[in-house]
């Protein structure tokens, strides 16, 4: 029966109870943690500037002990005020998108579900575009009050409103119909995109340039201020998500069975929906439309460690962060000194990869 255990890893499956992938999952999570640290150091070291990789990494690893002379003033500004916030923001956004995807897929019991699919991203975009276009005129009072927080707050608000409307539409007598929710999500996304279209129509030339670049997705504008605005939202949402892991596992057997197993399904849905809309809203606000992270990362990890959400969620956060940083490194070096919007990189790499996964999985698992 050894050859019928988990495909591809006969050696590891022999070390534990057959069918138990938890040890392998823990190992993968540790390796992903190490990979993320390496990716962050690599991202700090690479870029259009000539701050040399060696000096950046040495400065980081040895800290003040190495002496400040290791970095010139210019290099240290590049590292601390430009690259470091960008790396931190990239990691936060990548983690938020990947783990949100995994939670949505568990909630909808469908490996193709994604925050982009149910209109959360579209709603968040509408919020952000309203500020970009109307922030100087109609919505000027808002900008005056919230300052640099206006854009992320508006995106978060847009995502949250979309999710709440969706929840109202799809819930009858305390039960959420997933089919209605998916369809309503498509309708709401279309409505949000139409309203976004109206705003784009109203925009002037300079705003159009901002909009286009933002919609394609970019981490270029990363500042510590932005991290201060969206970081707490993303971190709070990601701290809430692990509490859904056990419930999402049970939900794989259906809502009724999950409830029979002792899971409070309505509360589970509530936590999942709120944390996903918060995380996605915040991510969209700072980075625009970065696609495919939420679908590709959990898919890859399910192939590797199985669908147990207790391991899938943290692993998705780590791999999402690392992959987005790699994509960003590509985005800012491949056409240096200019840089490509990161959304283009993730789509160019993610879309064919996603198709490949679908083709590979066809016949093994029903999608």
């Amino acid at each position, binding site marked *: *029966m050894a050859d*019928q*255990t*988990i495909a591809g890893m006969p050696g590891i*499956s022999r070390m534990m*109870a*057959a*069918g*138990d*992938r938890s040890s392998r999952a823990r190992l993968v999570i540790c390796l992903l943690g190490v990979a993320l640290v390496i990716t962050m150091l690599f991202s700090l070291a690479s870029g259009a500037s000539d701050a040399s990789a060696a000096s950046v990494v040495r400065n980081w690893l040895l800290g003040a002990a190495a002496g400040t002379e290791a970095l010139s003033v210019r290099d240290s500004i590049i590292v601390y005020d430009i690259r470091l916030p960008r790396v931190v923001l990239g990691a936060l956004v990548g983690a938020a998108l990947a783990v949100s995807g995994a939670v949505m897929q568990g909630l909808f*019991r*469908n*490996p193709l579900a994604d925050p982009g699919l149910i209109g959360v991203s579209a709603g968040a975009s509408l919020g952000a575009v309203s500020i970009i276009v109307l922030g100087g005129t109609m919505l000027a009072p808002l900008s005056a009050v919230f300052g640099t927080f206006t854009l992320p707050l508006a995106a978060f608000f847009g995502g949250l409103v979309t999710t709440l409307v969706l929840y109202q539409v799809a819930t009858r*007598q305390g039960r959420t119909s997933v089919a209605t929710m998916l369809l309503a999500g498509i309708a709401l996304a279309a409505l949000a995109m139409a309203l976004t279209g109206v705003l784009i129509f109203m925009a002037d030339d300079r705003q159009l340039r901002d909009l286009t670049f933002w919609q394609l997705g970019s981490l270029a504008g990363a500042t510590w201020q932005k991290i201060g605005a969206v970081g707490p939202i993303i971190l709070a949402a990601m701290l809430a998500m692990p509490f859904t892991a*056990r419930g999402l*596992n*049970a939900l*794989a*057997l*259906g809502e*009724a*069975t999950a*409830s*029979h*197993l*002792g*899971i*409070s*399904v309505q509360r589970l849905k509530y936590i999942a929906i709120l944390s996903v809309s918060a995380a996605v809203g915040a991510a969209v606000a700072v980075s625009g439309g970065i696609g495919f992270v939420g679908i590709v990362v959990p898919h890859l990890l*399910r192939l590797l460690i*199985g*669908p*147990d959400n207790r391991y899938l969620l943290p692993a998705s956060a780590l791999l999402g962060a690392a992959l987005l940083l790699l994509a960003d490194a590509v985005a800012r070096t491949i056409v240096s000194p200019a840089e490509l919007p990161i959304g283009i990189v993730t789509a160019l790499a993610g879309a064919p990869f996603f198709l490949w996964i679908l083709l590979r999985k066809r016949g*093994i*698992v*029903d999608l």
Partner: protein
Amino acid sequence: MIEARGVSVSIGKKCIVSDIDFEARPGEIATMVGPNGSGKTTFLKALSGEHAYTGHVAVNGRDLAAMAPAQAAGLRAVLPQATTLSFPFTVREIVKLGLVGGRSGVMPGEAERLPERALAKVDLEGFAGRFYQELSGGEQQRVQLARVLCQVWTPIIDGQPRYLFLDEPVSSLDIKHQLIIMNIARDFARRGGGVVAILHDLNLTAMFADRIYVMHRGTLAAAGTPHEVLRDRLIEQVFGCRLRVGALPAGNAPFVLPQSAL
């Protein structure tokens, strides 16, 4: 004891089940029989908290309607007719989900090995590492039963009897496994738990049921021991099919009854 008084269930405006009185006692197997669409599954779903109902249901003297999912999960486990799975879990991972919210009643160290023991019980030893979706329908049904058994592994906890709800547990099983599964139910009852089972096979019902509830068009047509209930007239009335209880086939035609199992 599970006690239902005057339970009715409506889905939309349609009344599916009306005014059912039902009891499931610890130490006994209570079976529900009846034609397709007579309301057996709907009533069981009311008992398991899945459908809203009018009337009163008490589990061990506590009102079912006031129970949180986690509390109910500690008192009963439910085997549905069919289970679909959305992600590629292994057999062991599925069975272990039985331990997610309920109380198996075994020591923490033992719980680690419970999936293997439950799988051995349903005659699936060595299947732990297989993918659930690659199994046959009958094997999948037995995996689900192993999961359900994990949830209420000890039939009595803190003096409280616990219950197995089984909706057509043997519908896709061969005769050997039908008997294995029914014997698991009987064993669970003998050790102090209660079993509520929906069955279609009247011979298995006669063989294993302590009490039979006969459903007909959403109401209770009869209730009692197999001797009291399995009568020619009632069967004809309910199933619309002229059958004679205890009659042998004419001539030398072979027949095999589960009762003949040695």
